[in-house]
């Protein structure tokens, strides 16, 4: 059994027939109720006029970014990234602040709004089926896909495959593999026959979204120490200056008792 160094999915929107078997498979495998699946299919609806009708659909789940924003944002480190790709969430640490939901540019993590304190409300998202890939199986959604719209494997191999499909059918696909560079690269790669924006995918730069935030955070400690030092110096300076001034006026008053009258 050969293990991948960087596990990834490839989704081909052209092959997707919108059967949603992946949603059912995910639900069963991960024991998640259907109304809260970690995977969901969305479509752009019908386009064109009869008889030349067209429609496109897209399977969404966690993109497993190379530079995950959820992981960067989580205050208590409930997220971690395995060296072989999957970004996973630990409910034992989560405080329920939902900052990861804001941070994720794809709107992936979702929260149990219907659970009280006793049930425990947690974040949930795709885990890349780590329990399956660790024993050499494909993720449940991939294993069940009837048209091979979803495939699983080594990220570099899948990228080659994807570019190969574009080259073989340049008239069919948009000439870009979404996820190759977006947000610093993701482990979910997407091929599409319609512009990616129409599938609801945000236009993202190759520079990871989290970088600005992390750079600013890097200033925190030096800035705090610097400001503390400056304030201490200012406080001491002002205090000494005021003391000296007070002493001077006191001296002036005692040596020349008439000054106050002359003023």
């Amino acid at each position, binding site marked *: 059994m050969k293990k991948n160094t960087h596990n990834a999915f490839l989704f081909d929107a052209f092959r997707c027939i919108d059967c949603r078997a992946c949603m059912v498979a995910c639900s069963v495998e991960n024991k998640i109720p259907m109304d809260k699946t970690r995977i969901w299919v969305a479509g752009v609806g019908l386009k064109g006029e009869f008889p030349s009708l067209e429609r496109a659909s897209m399977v969404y789940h966690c993109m497993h970014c190379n530079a995950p924003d959820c992981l*960067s944002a989580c205050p208590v480190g409930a997220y971690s990234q395995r060296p072989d790709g999957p970004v996973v969430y630990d409910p034992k640490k989560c405080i329920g602040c939902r900052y990861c939901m804001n941070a994720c540019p794809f709107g992936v993590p979702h929260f149990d709004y219907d659970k009280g304190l006793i049930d425990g409300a947690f974040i949930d998202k795709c885990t890349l089926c780590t329990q399956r890939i660790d024993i050499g199986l494909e993720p449940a959604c991939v294993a069940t896909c009837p048209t091979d719209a979803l495939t699983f494997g080594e990220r570099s191999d899948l990228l080659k495959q994807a570019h190969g499909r574009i080259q073989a059918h340049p008239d069919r696909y948009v000439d870009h593999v979404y996820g190759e560079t977006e947000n610093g690269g993701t482990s979910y790669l997407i091929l599409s026959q319609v512009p990616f924006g129409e599938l609801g995918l945000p236009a993202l730069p190759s520079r990871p979204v989290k970088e600005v935030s992390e750079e600013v955070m890097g200033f925190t400690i030096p800035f705090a120490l610097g400001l503390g030092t400056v304030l201490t110096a200012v406080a001491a300076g002002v205090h000494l200056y005021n003391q000296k001034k007070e002493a001077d006026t006191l001296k002036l008053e005692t040596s020349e008792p008439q000054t106050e009258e002359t003023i």
Partner: protein
Amino acid sequence: MKLQITLHPRLHLKPLVVILLSLMGIAFVIAMLRYANGIGAVSNLSNSYPWAFWISFDLFTGVAISSGAFLMAAVVYIFELKEFRPLVRPSVLTGFLGYMMVVIALLVDLGHPERIWYMMIHWNHTSVLLEIGICVMSYLAVLAIEFAPVVFEGLKWQKFAHFIHRFIMPFVILGVVLSTLHQSSLGSLLLIQPTKLYPLWWTPILPILFFISAVTIGLSMIILESSLSSRYFHRGLEIHLLEKLARVIPVVLAIYLVIKFSQLTIAGDLKYLFTGGLMSVLFLAEILIGAVIPIFLFSIKRIRQSAKGLLLGAVVLLLGMILNRFNVSWFAVQHPDPLSYMPAFMSNVHYLPSLPEVLVSMGIFSAGILAFGLAVKYLPVFEHEEEGRKTTS
């Protein structure tokens, strides 16, 4: 209306107190429902809107309006401008209660309120929210220490009061550092959503803008709280001091405007000023109400020197700047449009706060006002007034 609570011979409460207590009661019941049945049971928060009214009002507004405490502590203790001493205690009290309200509100908003202390043991050093959590917790402790002498004086434990007073300087400096950090970091919270926050607001210098506007909010809050408490507690108003604070505001606001518009020009985002529809309107409203009008108002000597003028200027500025906090943390955060079909858990993409959601915040705010009233009644919060007058005369 005078705030007056007499527990003897019979429980006699003024109407304002009755209203505040009822709001607190309602909020308590709603909070219990939320703990039993989940956040969705009382609020309209959803997977599309994980943060909205609670975070904008309780966290962003709550922290901003508490910034008077560190400003006054810095002015009086670090710069030794002793004439402002009468303003220190009320603003430290406002700050302490403000941050208490933030923490209480977070205990309703967090999915796992019983784990709030995890922020002290599990540190993810790249998280802006962690920095804010640590700063707010530590600063709450600093404010408690800064306010402790007032409590001890009230209890006639002069020795303790003097003891703390002698070692106050390190805490004042720590408080100013912590405040500078988290007032600006509230802006940094939004840096991780460059694709979601509208370009009129998203900029890497958000933390700087947040700090500068927090200064103007803090100064205005001191004016507002002095004006209101002088009215309700029938005490003198330190107009000569407030006028000096009001004189600073236009300068700070001018710096804010210059930085904000230079940033928009450099980023090439000026085009959104009039082409963004609702977003442009919100932005222009916040700039106009929060900065431009207050600059004019506080530049006029006659307005600065009248109690009504000061109050007007402070209220206008606060409305505009609070709109800014709401814009940045809620109104201007774009959410993905729903495609033609979505599973149920992704469906609530349109958001308006629910009534219970607003009532929770109102209840917590009422508790803060009531606590302020009680503290002023039983503790020497305004005691230093006479002393301050003496030093200035």
